[in-house]
C-alpha cells in the first residue's frame, strides 16, 4: 500500500540489515544513533556558543550605558545626599533610551541596581530602590514570585531581599519550611530582612538543620540589615530543640557581644551533646567571661578532647591570670600534643602574669615541649 522508493545506494544497506543476525542489526541501529547523536552534539555546541556570544555582545554594549546612567542620574544626583530619597525627583527619561521593553535588558538593569546597592548605604541605597520601583522593575519579580518553579521564586525572593521590598509575612513564612532547600533558605533570608514584626520568628519554627552555608548567608543578612531589632539570642539557646539553631545563636551572641546571654550559655555547659558544649565553651571564651573560668576548670577532666582544647583556649582568651598553675600542669603532664600546644598558647596569652612561669618552663622543658613553647611565642606563627 505504501510503496516508499528508497534511494538506490541504501538498498545494499537495507538488505544487509534485513538478513543480518540480531547483534549486527543492533550495531547498525546504534551506528545511526551514534552518528546522529554526534551531529546533534555539534549543533548544540554551535547554538549555545552563538546564543552566548550574542548575549555577551548585547550586554557588553548595554552594561556601560546602564552604569553611566546610574552614576549620572542617581549616585551623583545633586540632591542625593541632602534631600530625603522620597523627595528626590529622578530623571527617568534618561533610562528610556535603554531597551526596557526587552526582558533581558530589564534583568540586566535590575542586576546592576542590586550591584550598586550592595556597595552603598543610606540615602543612596534608598534612591536606587526608588529608581527600581519607578521603572516598575519589581513587576518582573512579582511575576516570578507567582511562578510554580522554585528557581524563579528563589530569584524573586533574592531580588526582594536585595531591594528591601516589603512582602507580607504570610507569603514568606510558609516558605521558610519548604521541602526545597534553596527555596527554604531564600525565604528565611527574605523573612529576616523584610519582616516588620518578628524577623527571627522562624528560629522558633525551623525544624530542618541550618547548614554551614545557611549560617554564612544568615549572618550576612542579619549584620547588613539596617534598623533590625537584634533580640537576645539566649532565648533560642535556652529553648530551641534544633541544635543547629542553638549553635548559630552562640555565634551571633559572640558577634553582637551579648553579655546578658552569658547565663544561658553557661547552662548549656550541662548539655549532653559535646559538640554544642564545645561551641558554648568557645562562646564563653570569646566573650571573655572571667566568672566562668572556675567552672570550666572544674569540668575539664570529664570532657572529651575537643572540649578540653576549647577550655584551654577559653582560659587563654579570658586571660585573667588565675589559672596559670592549671595551664602549667596541663602543659607539663598532658600526653596529648594538641592539649600541650593549647595550654602553651594560653600561657603565652597570660604572659602579663605568667612571664616567670614561661621562663622557668623554657629552662626545664623537654625538647618537644620547648619547641611547642617557642612555636607559641613566635609572632610569625599565627596558629
Amino acid at each position, binding site marked *: 500500500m505504501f510503496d516508499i522508493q528508497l534511494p538506490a545506494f541504501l538498498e545494499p544497506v537495507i538488505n544487509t540489515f534485513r538478513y543480518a543476525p540480531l547483534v549486527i542489526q543492533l*550495531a547498525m541501529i546504534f551506528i545511526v544513533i*551514534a552518528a546522529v547523536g554526534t551531529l546533534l552534539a555539534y549543533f548544540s555546541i554551535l547554538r549555545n556558543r552563538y546564543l552566548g556570544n550574542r548575549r555577551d555582545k548585547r550586554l557588553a554594549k548595554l552594561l556601560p550605558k546602564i552604569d553611566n546612567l546610574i552614576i549620572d542620574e542617581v549616585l551623583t544626583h545633586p540632591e542625593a545626599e541632602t534631600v530625603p530619597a522620597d523627595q528626590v525627583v529622578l530623571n527617568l527619561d534618561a533610562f528610556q533610551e535603554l531597551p526596557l521593553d526587552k526582558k533581558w535588558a530589564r534583568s540586566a538593569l535590575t542586576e546592576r541596581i542590586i550591584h550598586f546597592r550592595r556597595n552603598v548605604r543610606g540615602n543612596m541605597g534608598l534612591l536606587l530602590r526608588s529608581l527600581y520601583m519607578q521603572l516598575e522593575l519589581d513587576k518582573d519579580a512579582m511575576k516570578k514570585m507567582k511562578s510554580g518553579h522554585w528557581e524563579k521564586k528563589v530569584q524573586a525572593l533574592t531580588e526582594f531581599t536585595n531591594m528591601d521590598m516589603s512582602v507580607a509575612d504570610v507569603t514568606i513564612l510558609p516558605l521558610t519550611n519548604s521541602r526545597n532547600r534553596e527555596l527554604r533558605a531564600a525565604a528565611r533570608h527574605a523573612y529576616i530582612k523584610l519582616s516588620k514584626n518578628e524577623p527571627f520568628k522562624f528560629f522558633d519554627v525551623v525544624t530542618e538543620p541550618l547548614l554551614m552555608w545557611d549560617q554564612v548567608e544568615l549572618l550576612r543578612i542579619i549584620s547588613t540589615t539596617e534598623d533590625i531589632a537584634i533580640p537576645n539570642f539566649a532565648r533560642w539557646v535556652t529553648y530551641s530543640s534544633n541544635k543547629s539553631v542553638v549553635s548559630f545563636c552562640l555565634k551571633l551572641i559572640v558577634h553582637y557581644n551579648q553579655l546578658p546571654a552569658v547565663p544561658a550559655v553557661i547552662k548549656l555547659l550541662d548539655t549532653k551533646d559535646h559538640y554544642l558544649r564545645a561551641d558554648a565553651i568557645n562562646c564563653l571564651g570569646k566573650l571573655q567571661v572571667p566568672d566562668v573560668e572556675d567552672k570550666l576548670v572544674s569540668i575539664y577532666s570529664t570532657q572529651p578532647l575537643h572540649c578540653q582544647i576549647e577550655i584551654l583556649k577559653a582560659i587563654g582568651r579570658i586571660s585573667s591570670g588565675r589559672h596559670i598553675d592549671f595551664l602549667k600542669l596541663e602543659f607539663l603532664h598532658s600526653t596529648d600534643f594538641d592539649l600541650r600546644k593549647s595550654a602553651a598558647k594560653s600561657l603565652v596569652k597570660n604572659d602579663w602574669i605568667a612571664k616567670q612561669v614561661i621562663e622557668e618552663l623554657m629552662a626545664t622543658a623537654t625538647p618537644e615541649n620547648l619547641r611547642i613553647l617557642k612555636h607559641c611565642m*613566635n609572632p610569625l606563627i599565627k596558629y
Partner: protein
Amino acid sequence: MSGILEILGKIYQSAIFVYGLVLLLVYALLAIFSRLAVRQYTRKNSLHQRDLLSSSPLAPGITILAPAFNEGMTIISNVRSLLTLNYPRYEIVLINDGSTDNTMEQLITEFKMVEVAYAYNVKIRTQPVRKIFKSTDPAYASLIVIDKVNGKSKADAVNAGINLATFNYFVCTDVDCILDKDTLLELILPVMQEENKRVIAVGATLRIANSCEFDEGVMTRMRPPRQLLPRFQEVEYIRSFVLGKMGWSYINCVPNVSGGLGLFDKEVATRCGGYDHSSFGEDMELLTRMCRYAHDNEIDYAIRYIPKTLCWTEAPATLKIFNRQRTRWARGLAQLMYSHFHMFMNPRYGKMGLIIFPFNFFFELLAPLVEFSGIIVYIVLAVTGNINWPYALLLLLFVYLYSVMITTISIVWDQLSFRYYKSWWEVAYLCMTPFMEFLIYHPLIVLYSLRGYYYFLTGKKSTWGNMQRQGFGKKKIK
C-alpha cells in the same frame, strides 16, 4: 580438539559481548547522570553568591598542601599563584621533598623565609623533616615551607604537610598546577551545603595547561593544546571529569579524587593513615581507605565533584614521559585492587564494594587485558580465515562511533555550562580530536597499562618521576 576450541571461542565471544554491552550501558547512564549533576551545579551556582564567604567570619579554615620536588623552574610563579587565592582563612604548606636543584634557595630568597621552631606533631610517619620556614614579610604570612628528606613519593611529602596542617580541611595539589583564584570557595561549598552527610572529599575538573597563557601564575587565556598528545589528554580529562566523575558524583559513587586537586576532611584522612607512600596511585588509594574508614565507623559520608575547571596542569608532551606517567597510574590501579580486594562485591562497604570496586575491576583494570586479548583473537581468526569481514567492520564502526559520541557529549556538557575557549575554531579543533583518539591515543593507553601491570607483577623498582616541565612563568604562546 577443534570442538573444544569452538566451545571456548563461543564462550569468549559471549563474555565479550556481555562485557561490551554493560560497558556501553554504563557510559550511557553516566552521560545522563553527569548532565543532571552538571545542571544541578549550574542552577545552584546561579542562585548563590559565592563571594559572601570571602568576607565571612564563619568560613572554615583550609590548608593547602603543595609538595615540590625539583620544581625550580616554576616554583616562584606557582607559589605566587597560590598566594593570590580568594579565601579569608587559609594557609599554604609547601613541602620541599629533598629537591636537589635550587627550589629551596629560591623560596628562601624570594619570600624572605626564615627557619622557625615549629611545633610539628608526627601523626603520620614520614621521612624526617629537616627545617620549617616562615616568611618575615607579612604579605606572605600564610606561607609555610617544610624542608624534608626525600621520601621518593608524593605521598610521603603530603603526609608531612598533613601533620603540620592547622585546619580541619586540606586541599592537596601539585605545586606545578595553576589554580583558579576561587578554587577554595568552590571546593568548600559542597561541604557547607551538604544536608545529611559528612563530605569527606571534594574534587574538581582539571585541564591541560600546555597551550594556555599564564602571567605570574595566573591563567589569562585558555586554549586547547596545540600538540596532539596533550590535546588527546585534554579530551580525555574532559570525558573523565565532566562526564565520568560528575556522573558518579550524582549517585555518590566517586571512585577517585585527582591528586592534582582535591579537598579532604583532615580528621578522616589522618585517622586512616594518610597517603600510602608505597602506592603508585596514592590519590585513589587514600580515597578508598577513607571510604573504608567511613564504613567501618558508620560515618554517612559523601564525596562530591565540581564540573567547573579549577586547576590546570602541564601534561606530558613526549611519549617517553607520557609512557612513564600512564605506566605508573596502571601500576597504582593494580596495586589498589590487590591490596583492597576484600572490598570487592562486599555489601559491608555499600556502594564502594558493590558498584565502584566492581566497575574499577572489570572496566578499568581488566579493560586493557580484554582489549589485548581481543586483538590477539582477531588476528588468529583473520589468519585462519574465520572472520566475516563486513560484520566485523560494522561492529568496529559501531564501537568507534559510540566512543566518539560519548566523548563529544562530554565536550557538549562542558560547553553548555561554561563555554570555555575564546574562539569557535578552538572548540572545533577539540571536537575533531575524538576521531583520532580511538585510533592513535587509545592503543597507547592499552600498551602502557599492560606495561604497568607487568611492572606490578614483577615488582620492578620505580620512583616519583620528574615531569621535565617547561614552566608557566610568563606568556608561553604568542
